């Protein structure tokens, strides 16, 4: 048994003694950490199932962020000052960029324009140079400039170096047009170029007159081209009744041209003139309105010559008979009228 004593002694030395307890007292409750029950709560379970449904998944993953972004943006922008600040800031940044050196336009160069047009063009520029090229809308400018009568075509380009170059093609006036409101210069297509005060401004251009003449400028120019021999005597073309041309010559002579195909009629008249010297005679009007039946209207001298040759009394400028010696004009006129009527 002594061996056992050794053992027990060793045991009691090594092992810590049992904790002393007051008799009758319950042992202190174990401070055990409450083990969490595995398994989800009903709410967690239902949420998990919801998340597995593709419809709700899409709704939350895509719809919710969109909604949040829209809501935040809306709230942020609802304040007036913030909106103003935002627009002001954006405008400032834009202004900053647009005013950069590389974008500035400093000068304007115009080619192919007469001084008046040049001045007009420079005045038509909507901005004062130097300006940013973002402010100059070339297309609008071109349309505005082309509305000017004097300019047929204009090309705008902004060249590097800040130069706005305009290449202008002006309208060439081809003819003068006199109408009720004044005197206009027209180009070969009948488009108005400018208004002039008197015919002497452009002595070298032919003249047409009458309402609606501008619309048939090409016809008029063709007629003028064809009127070679009588060109020095040509005073102009008149548009009669907006239907047909009248060639007006000096010394009060007219050639009435038909509505359709006036050019062959004119040539016919010129041929008659070349043949018989018609225009150098006392003829007031050559009426070719019906080309198959040319009609001549004679002047007073020619009429009287014919009457003398026929033995008839001559007439004066008013159409009254001139009795050679006896009688007044009244009885001679009555006798003539009776003889004519008979």
């Amino acid at each position: 048994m002594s061996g056992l004593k050794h053992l027990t002694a060793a045991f009691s030395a090594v092992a810590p003694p049992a904790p002393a307890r007051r008799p009758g007292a319950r042992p202190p409750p174990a401070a055990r950490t409450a083990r969490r029950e595995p398994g989800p709560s009903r709410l967690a379970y239902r949420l998990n199932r919801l998340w597995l449904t593709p419809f709700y998944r899409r709704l939350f993953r895509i719809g919710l962020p969109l909604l949040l972004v829209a809501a935040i943006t809306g709230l942020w922008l609802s304040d007036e000052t913030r909106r103003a600040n935002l627009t002001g800031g954006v405008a400032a940044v834009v202004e900053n960029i647009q005013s950069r050196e590389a974008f500035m336009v400093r000068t304007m160069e115009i080619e192919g324009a007469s001084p008046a047009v040049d001045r007009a063009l420079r005045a038509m520029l909507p901005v004062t140079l130097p300006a940013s090229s973002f402010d100059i809308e070339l297309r609008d400018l071109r349309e505005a400039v082309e509305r000017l009568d004097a300019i047929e075509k204009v090309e705008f380009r902004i060249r590097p170096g800040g130069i706005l170059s305009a290449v202008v093609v002006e309208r060439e006036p081809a003819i003068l047009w006199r109408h009720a409101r004044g005197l206009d210069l027209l180009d070969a297509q009948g488009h108005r170029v400018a208004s002039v005060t008197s015919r002497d401004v452009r002595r070298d251009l032919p003249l047409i007159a009458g309402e609606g003449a501008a619309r048939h400028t090409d016809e008029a120019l063709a007629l003028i081209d064809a009127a070679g021999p009588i060109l020095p005597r040509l005073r102009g073309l008149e548009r009669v009744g907006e239907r047909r041309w009248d060639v007006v010559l000096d010394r009060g002579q007219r050639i009435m041209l038909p509505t359709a195909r006036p050019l062959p009629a004119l040539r016919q008249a010129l041929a008659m003139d070349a043949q018989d010297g018609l225009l150098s005679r006392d003829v007031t009007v050559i009426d070719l309105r019906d080309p198959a039946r040319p009609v001549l209207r004679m002047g007073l001298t020619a009429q009287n010559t014919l009457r003398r040759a026929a033995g008839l009394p001559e007439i004066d400028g008013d159409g009254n008979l001139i009795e050679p010696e006896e009688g007044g004009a009244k009885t001679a006129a009555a006798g003539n009228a009776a003889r004519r009527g008979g």
Partner: protein
Amino acid sequence: MRQARRAAMARGVLAVLDIGTSKVTCIVLQFDGPGQFRESDGVGPMAGQSSFRVIGQFTTQSRGVRYGEIETMAETERCVRHAVQGAQKQAGVRVDHVIATISGARPASYGLAGEIALRSGKVTEEDVAAALAACEVPDFGRNRDVLHAQPVNFAVDARSGLSDPRDIVGDRLAVDMHVLTIDGFAASNLVQCVQRCDLELAGVGSAAYAAGRAALVEDEQELGAACVDMGGGVTGVSLFLKKHMLFADAVRMGGDLVTRDISAGLRVPLATAEWLKTRHGGLEATNRDDREMIDVTPERDEHWDGERRTVSRADLIGIMRPRVEEILDGVREVLEVAGFDQMPSRQVVLTGGASQIPGLDGLAMRILGQNVRIGRPLRIHGLAQQHTAPCHAATVGLALHAANPQDEWWDFEMPVERAGVVGLRRAYRWFRNNW
């Protein structure tokens, strides 16, 4: 329930839920391919075969279940939610329909017989339904619900043993039906538990039946075998012949009882007892076991007095063996009542968690007869390694049952019950109430 199952198959995703005494397992099946659930096939080899795949699985410890029946609803619900959520997460889809197992719940098997005269000279589906309706139903007792009612044998005139009598010429058609009833409260509790987890019940199966389908090979099912599912709370026994289940019963003893015995006998906590049983348990003691000492020192807490404790494996075996013998004796009694001796081939297959005890097959051979083997469940596609252990036989069996369902009475359009005969319909009131 037909509609629920059809809806589940149409959606293609189905969950199998096994609520047991020791664990709750949920596996999610995906049905794909052309073999969809075809209800029109009617009698015979199942109403349509389907190919399926396991896409999610989860097991958790079960609480609130005793002897296979739900005792504490809240705890069991939580475990079910845990298992279902885990399986859903792994599968990545939400499951709405679930097929559940019931183990234990005091099952009772009845064999019913019905006979009709054929009107058209040959057997049609309406005749089969009429024959099923003509079975005289005995009084099942108070508060009993029918779990399975399967036609197991058809006989036309004198020819018996037909499994599919359609279009057979004859005068009379007789049918043998096997009806399995369980305690009504257990069934209602299960239904309510499932419903509270936002799931729809698409089918219910007996755990013993499911284990038999998983652990018995086809030859055994054809020639006759008994499957013993040794679970935690209940040991289920099911008899199979000609690919149909003939009998099912349960012994209210299981592996948990063994654990409790160890805990009481060796004065160790339950967790340690469980560990001892699974890690060092056995049933055959040898000389070596006397000397093999297992350290069962309790955890360091304020009651620890510094003493190290060891037990020998022989002690452990000495505690486990009587209880296991008692369980096997119970199984033998059940088999005797079932008429197991008259079966052509008396093969016994042990499965379930408690069947993994080393030395069980030797002990079982002495008690249950010569043809005893330890069975594992059938392999199904996609199942993880840990779920192919014998303790998951019921789960796997139920998955097979879901894919290849056996004809049940409610697959047939039953005619209106005749006067005086207590038809089957009335017995199935709770089906209508719950679904």
